[in-house]
């Protein structure tokens, strides 16, 4: 079972920029992104998120997001996707960075989740 990461941000530049940071510690981890609306305005798009799930080569995806409405679109995409996706209400950058480095090190999902727990900042 392989683990990958999907990043969802309201801003295309944030979604495109964060993988640059993660790739430094996780060059082999599949990372896909969904940033902005369909018109690349500020917002999120369920279709873009579904696409990010589909193009991620991992069997299971850990999903991270920036602000509230990104979560709603993520949840809708999860309901419509066949892929197994786990959603984390953690600090966006720190959470994704933690998960990326642990997945690269071969750590399993349960232990990744244990390390993500203290990073939870959203309800």
């Amino acid at each position, binding site marked *: 079972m392989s683990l990958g990461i999907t990043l969802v941000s309201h801003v295309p530049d944030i979604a495109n920029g964060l993988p640059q940071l993660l790739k430094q510690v996780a060059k082999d981890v599949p990372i896909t992104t969904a940033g902005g*609306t*369909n*018109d690349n*305005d*500020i*917002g*999120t*798009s*369920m*279709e873009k998120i579904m696409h990010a799930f589909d193009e991620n080569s991992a069997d299971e995806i850990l999903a991270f997001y920036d*602000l*509230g*409405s990104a979560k*709603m*679109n993520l*949840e*809708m995409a999860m309901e419509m996707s066949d892929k197994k996706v786990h959603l984390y209400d953690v600090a966006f950058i720190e959470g994704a960075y933690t998960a990326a480095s642990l997945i690269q090190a071969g750590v399993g999902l349960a232990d990744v989740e244990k390390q993500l727990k203290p990073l939870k900042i959203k*309800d």
Partner: protein
Amino acid sequence: MTLTVDTLCTWMNKFADKVETNRQHLSDLDTPIGDGDHGFNMDRGMKAVEEKLATKPADLTSGFKTIAMALISTVGGASGPLYGTAFLEMAKKSASTDDLNELLEAALAGIEMRGGAKPGDKTMVDVWDKLVPEVKAGNLTEDKIKAAVLATKDMVAHKGRASYLGERSKGHIDPGAESSGYLFEAMLETEGLL
């Protein structure tokens, strides 16, 4: 109170008109406590809905689904998934009933599930939560709609972009509550619906 494809289309077209007329007002409400785009987002979404409904849906379920998907894919802000979920839940419910009360109750449950907001959190839920029972009791009036919308003014936001402002969100009407008010006004003005 039976909903038909015809009354659904009239209801939506009236809602779209109200959103278009008031899109600047909705965005202005969203400026001090949000990201200032609610009116433009909703107008874009409802224009897409109007376009799709120009071809009459075969039945209620496909009508609701069409509306939901148009909103989800065009609105962009938080109102896309929230209104989208409301109409998706009505689509599901419409497989077993065309009773407006039951449909609205399913929609409200969907909005609460998706956004996690409760009454008092200064969101669209405050309007839906007050008005769905009024529809059921046959007591929906314009005054009640206005009162439900206005009640959000003195609340402190606990959900959405406004919640980052905490106490400072007081004194502003919630834009999602206002646009929901238009949806209920449009219902009231749709002949043969209530």
